[in-house]
């Protein structure tokens, strides 16, 4: 759905967000990572999660996928609690991850990697449609189907990683640092693709360090710091916020 349309509808009716964190805490052993975190992601949006290394961004992604279990609070997807829901069931319900540093299966072919993205779904016409969609978005991927994923270049790997996630036919795409390690020109390409995917109807929740780029394409953003949300709002407004400019865009005063 078009975000603008969604916003108009939102004014009229109370809409359940696609993904909602309420008061989520997570721990690794003695370490307290997320501290009572709230997120709210509406269907059709691009939402960015900004923050430094070790601020809890990747933990957020792992919590959404169910790899990390919250010690308090609740995560809801499409209005239903995800407590006790397996990773496979989450993928089936429509959440797919694009992992940090791509994380392809290096000694499997590109095609097998795409298949792994659709692991929780039966083969059938829908599988073929999704495959076709990936090929349309990334013609390069189609050329390299039989190649081992570990032999691809960084940019090609990122395309396969996004393609792999799309093979799950997700409603929500969770991307962990899609720009990491990519050349600037490739970063711009990737961000263009993200916008295209979003326009085709997929909601996007994206962890990013490249704050300028992330805020440029996002509708809204959250800023995470030592496991707490310290700032949130419309991306356009956050770009003007002096705090974020200082801390994350490097807009420091040059004396």
């Amino acid at each position: 759905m078009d975000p603008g349309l969604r916003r108009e509808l939102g004014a009229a009716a109370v809409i359940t967000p696609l993904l909602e964190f309420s008061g989520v805490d997570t721990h690794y052993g003695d370490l307290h990572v997320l501290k009572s975190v709230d997120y709210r992601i509406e269907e059709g949006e691009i939402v960015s999660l900004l923050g430094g290394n070790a601020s809890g961004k990747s933990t957020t992604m792992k919590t959404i996928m169910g790899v990390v279990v919250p010690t308090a609070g609740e995560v809801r997807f499409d209005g239903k609690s995800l407590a006790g829901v397996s990773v496979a069931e989450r993928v089936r319900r429509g959440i797919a991850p694009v992992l940090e540093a791509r994380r392809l299966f290096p000694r499997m072919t590109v095609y097998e990697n795409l298949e792994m993205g659709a692991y929780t779904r039966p083969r059938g016409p829908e599988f073929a449609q999704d495959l076709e969609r990936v090929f349309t978005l990334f013609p390069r991927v189609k050329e390299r189907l039989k190649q081992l994923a570990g032999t691809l270049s960084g940019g090609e790997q990122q395309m396969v990683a996004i393609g792999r996630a799309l093979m799950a036919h997700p409603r929500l795409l969770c991307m962990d640092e899609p720009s990491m390690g990519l050349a600037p020109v490739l970063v711009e390409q990737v961000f263009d693709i993200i916008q295209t995917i979003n326009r085709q109807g997929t909601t996007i929740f994206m962890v990013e360090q490249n704050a300028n780029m992330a805020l440029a394409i996002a509708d809204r953003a959250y800023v995470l710091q030592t496991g707490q949300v310290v700032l949130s709002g419309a991306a356009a407004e956050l770009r003007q916020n002096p705090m974020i400019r200082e801390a994350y865009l490097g807009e420091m005063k040059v004396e």
Partner: protein
Amino acid sequence: MMGESFAWIQRASPVQWIAPHLRSRVLVAVVFLLALLFPVIHRNDADIDSAANALTYAALALGLNIVVGLAGLLDLGYAAFFAIGAYTYGVAASWQVAPEWTSFWETFQWLGLVARFHDSGGDVVHFQVSFWLMMPAAAALTAFFGVLFGAPTLRLKGDYLAIVTLGFGEIVPIVVRNTPSLTNGAMGLNGVMAPQLFGWSFGVDATPYYYVGLLLVAFLILTSQRLKFSRIGRAWMAIREDEIAAAAMGINRVKLKLLAFATGAAFAGATGTLFVAKLQTATPDMFGFPVSVMILVMIVFGGIGSVWGVVLGALILQMLQSWFLEDLSQWLQALGRLFGVDWLQRVELASSIELIFGLILVTMMLYRRDGLIPATRRVAALSLEQQSAPVTRGGFDSLRGLGALDQTLDRPGAGPLLEIANLTVRFGGLVALREVALGVPAHSVLAVIGPNGSGKSTLFNAMTGLVSAEEGSIRFAGAEILGRPPHAVLERGIARTFQNIRLFPNLTVLENVLVGMHARLHTGPLGALLRLPATHREEAAARERAREILAVFGNRLLPRVDHVTASLSYANRRRVEIARALASEPKLLLLDEPTAGMNPAETLELAEQIQSLHRLGLTIVLIEHKLDVVVNLADKVIVLDHGEKIAEGSPAEIRRDEEVIRAYLGRSAAIV
């Protein structure tokens, strides 16, 4: 550790009048006295014999504990060293080898090591080396074998080492079996001499062996304890906790692992001497895999790494085997007779001892991995008062031993302290760094910035010897350090922290910092064992200095010196890591995202502390994402992108550089 484990004793009233710090010593003295009196009171030769055997296994457990418990090297063929010790004495004090007499042997005869024996076919040599001489000699020889075997294999990852040691444990009995000329093969050595003391032979009476065993165990406990709480023991535990971090903190992994292996082997060698002297025979079957497993079960049961724990584990399991199981079998048989249950009457639990060992091993691993007396001390959490103590803000004015440089390096025009040229690092097909060049003048701060994955941490890894470079050069203080192992780099004066924090999680804050001093302290294994005044002074000074360094962070760490670092907050772990690096008296400090995971107040606090280090003369290279920190601290900034240096200059210049804005700060054109 003793004081804590036996805390219940302190509640009993008679110990109230013993000063608290002496209680554990008094307890040890009482236990030792009781053990000394045991044969006098009990006077049952069979029981004394079992007790002597139990002491033998306690000695073995102490040896394996050095290897597995302290250094973290899983050795599944430990019995092989036991065998080498046993056969060394067995051959040197029996009729097994009897070459023809020649004049060559006369000197040895004069020394009393051999005797001339008149045989029908001519005179032959009879080896009769004294037990008291052979015990240390066998220990030394076994240690030598430990080094011989360890040198090629100790570089292997833990689980591979395990299987190689398993193979070694299988091979040694095979070699013994296949070389009958030396060992009498599967038939076994015969007629091994009993030890003699002032002309009196030990014979077959168990009591003298019990006392030798008791003294041996007492000596090995002392050795273990003194090593464990010394520079050497800390280095072993650091290797166990995190090998890479240990190497980066100046620990020569190969040397210390070999030392652990040799020490463990020596313990087994000495014990083997006693074992064969007591039995006066030895066959290859006595040293097979089951023995290695039994010793492993003992240390797992008692508590891996815990000196008192493994002794207790060995004693309990041996007592179980020789006393309790037999009694239990008899009770069960009696029960069977009483109720007419046929199979109960035939129960023989003693034969299923190995099954019971297997069950104990699995059960302990699943339900109580720390064993009876855990080695790791968990200190109570801080009181609310301590936790809420006001945080000190800002820098500090003095810290000894920072960044001191040679006069030659420190005069004007001496060239940069660190100079990197043409550095290229490749991982498979991926270029992580391409022809990077940079220079860091003494007493300056260089910041390295760039997006995640741009090669910043690889740069640090190449500088500290953790990854090898394809080409280029890294000159530090006038010498090439590229290709040098990590510990050698630290010795030259480069210390670092890690992006994902690599502390030694089960060591305390203080111990972590003390490990950082490894390269600057001198206590060796002998010094640790003898605890000479010099060792004492060095250790006391090291602890004093560790506290001084921790005091840099105000009251963040000082109240937590005895806490294991696994229990600290993220920010405190970062601080401990910096303290550990400072402890090595670096000339150059490499900080990999020191403020990651810190909130703005903590970030500011740490930035001011880093500023103080700089002011006190330390040269610093800093990887940092928070640009306000970079601007405040750095004299110069270099920007990496895709493993290439794309810009270099003052923070202000970098801020204006178009390419930097594009690559690092993102497509800002889109938002302006």
